[in-house]
C-alpha cells in the first residue's frame, strides 16, 4: 500500500535544510528555538555580510546567542566560509550541478532550493557558469497538501480529465497547487507526467523526487517544456501532463499536440487576472483550440493558493 511521504512539520524541514550546511554552521541553526524554526522560510548567507533568517515577513540575523533584528550583532561569513557552504551544498561536485548553476539555483536533498548569486561567466552572450559566489539563499521547501483539492474536484467533476490553466501573479501559489494536483491525481490512480523544467515541482535530487507526487507520477527533470510534453505524450502514455509557466509558442503548440493525442495538459501561466491572460495571444490560442477547458485564477501573493475565479472555457468568454 502506497502511503506517500510525510509532508514534514515546518521545524523538521528547517532542520533538514540546516543539516545540509557545513557542520560548524549547521549546529548554530540547530540550536535555535523551536518556534523560530517553525516560522523560518529562508536562510540567507552573503559574503562578508550578516547571515539572516527570513521569518514569515521579517528578517532576523544569526548571532552567537541565537537570532536578533539588529545586524550589528550578527555573524558574518567570510568569502572562504561562503565558498565552503557552496561546496558543501554541491557535495564537492560542482561539475554535476553545472546546468543548475547556469540557471542560478541548486536543488538540494529534501526538495529545498538554494538560489545563488555571484559573478557570471559568459560565453557567446550566455551564462556558462557562476564564479565568486557572493550569496546563497536556501529556500526551505514546504509541500502544502490539499492546496490542489478544489481544482482537482473541478477537473474531475465530469469524469474525464480536461486541460486546465492556472493563472496568477508571482508568488500566488501556482507551483504549489500544480504539485499538489499531481499528487492528488496520481494517488487517485491516474498516470501523471510532470515536465519539471526548473526542478520546482518535483525537486528531483539524484533522480528521486523530493516532494510527494504520489505513486503514479513520472518526472521529466530539467526538460525544456515543449520537448518534455511531446516526449511524455509519445513515450510514457500519461493520462495528464503537468508543467509550470507556459506561454511561449513552442510550449503552446506542444500542449495542442498533446490535446490532439488525447492527453490533457494542466499548466500555469503568469497573469494578474483572467482578463489579462485572455489578452495574451498564445494563451488565447490554447483556449480557442480546446486544449484548455478550465481556467483557475488565483488571488496572488496576498493569499497564496486561494482560487478567486473558475471559468469554463466551453462557455463564451469575454
Amino acid at each position, binding site marked *: 500500500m502506497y502511503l506517500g511521504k510525510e509532508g514534514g512539520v515546518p521545524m523538521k524541514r528547517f532542520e533538514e535544510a540546516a543539516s545540509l550546511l*557545513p*557542520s560548524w554552521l549547521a549546529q548554530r541553526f540547530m540550536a535555535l528555538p523551536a518556534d523560530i524554526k517553525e516560522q523560518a522560510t529562508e536562510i540567507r548567507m552573503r559574503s562578508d555580510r550578516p547571515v539572516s533568517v527570513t521569518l514569515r515577513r521579517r528578517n532576523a540575523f544569526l548571532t552567537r546567542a541565537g537570532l536578533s533584528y539588529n545586524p550589528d550583532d550578527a555573524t558574518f561569513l567570510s568569502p572562504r566560509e561562503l565558498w565552503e557552504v557552496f*561546496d*558543501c551544498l*554541491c*557535495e*564537492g*561536485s*560542482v*561539475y*554535476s550541478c*553545472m546546468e543548475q548553476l547556469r540557471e542560478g539555483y541548486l536543488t538540494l536533498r529534501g526538495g529545498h532550493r538554494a538560489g545563488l548569486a555571484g559573478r557570471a561567466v559568459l560565453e557567446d552572450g550566455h551564462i556558462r*557558469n557562476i564564479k565568486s559566489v557572493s550569496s546563497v539563499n536556501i529556500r526551505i521547501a514546504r509541500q502544502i497538501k490539499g492546496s490542489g483539492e478544489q481544482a482537482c474536484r473541478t477537473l474531475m467533476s465530469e469524469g474525464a480529465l480536461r486541460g486546465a490553466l492556472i493563472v496568477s501573479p508571482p508568488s500566488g501559489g501556482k507551483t504549489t497547487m500544480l504539485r499538489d494536483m499531481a499528487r492528488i491525481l496520481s494517488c487517485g490512480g491516474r498516470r501523471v507526467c510532470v515536465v519539471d523544467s526548473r526542478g520546482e515541482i518535483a525537486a528531483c535530487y*539524484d533522480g528521486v523526487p523530493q516532494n510527494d507526487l504520489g505513486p503514479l507520477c513520472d518526472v521529466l527533470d530539467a526538460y525544456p517544456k515543449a520537448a518534455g510534453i511531446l516526449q511524455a505524450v509519445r513515450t510514457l502514455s500519461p493520462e495528464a501532463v503537468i508543467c509550470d509557466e507556459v506561454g511561449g509558442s513552442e510550449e503552446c503548440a506542444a500542449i495542442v499536440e498533446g490535446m490532439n493525442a488525447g492527453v490533457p495538459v494542466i499548466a500555469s501561466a503568469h497573469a494578474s487576472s483572467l482578463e489579462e491572460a485572455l489578452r495574451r495571444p498564445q494563451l488565447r490560442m490554447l483556449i480557442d483550440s480546446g486544449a484548455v477547458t478550465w481556467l483557475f485564477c488565483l488571488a496572488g501573493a496576498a493569499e497564496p493558493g486561494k482560487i478567486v475565479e473558475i471559468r469554463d472555457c466551453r462557455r463564451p468568454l469575454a
Partner: protein
Amino acid sequence: MLKPVGMLFIFLSMSFFGFHLSFSLSRRVEALDYFVLAVEVIRGELRFLQPSLPRLFEKLASDPRFARPPFFALVAKGLSYRKNVREAWREALAAQARDLCLSDADTVILLRFAYALGGSDLAGQDSLCAFTLEELKSQRDKAAEYRHTHAKTYRILGVLSGLFVCLLLV
C-alpha cells in the same frame, strides 16, 4: 645451542628484510596500477554519468576491482561522515600507506588529484583526470623498471647479508 638458534634468527631476519623490500617494490607497482585504473574509471563516470562525488566513491567502493586495498571504501566512509573529498582521500591514503607502499612523489600526485577533484566543470575534470593519468603511468613505468632492476638484488642482498653476519659470528 643458543648460538645456532641466534644465527638462524639473524639469517632469517635479514633474508626477510631483503624479501620485504623486494615485495614492497611489487606492491608499489600494483598500487600504481590500481590508481591508474581508478582514475580511468573516474574519468569515464564523470564524462558519461556525472555522479556526485559521494555516489561516485560509493560505486567504486562496491566495485570488486577496487576491493583490495579498500581505499575507496575508506573514502566513501569519510564522505558519509560529511568530510570533504580532500580530507577523506588524505585520511584514506594515510590509513593505507603501509599496504600501498607509495613513494612521496606518488602521494603528492594523488593528493593533488583529490584537491582538484569536483572543483570545476566537466572539461576541467576531464583535463585533471588526463593529466593525473599521465603522471601516474609515468610513475608506474619508473616503478616497474626499478622493480625489474632491483627486486632480485634486494632478495639476494638480504640472504647474503644474513649469511655474512652468521659467518662472522661463527
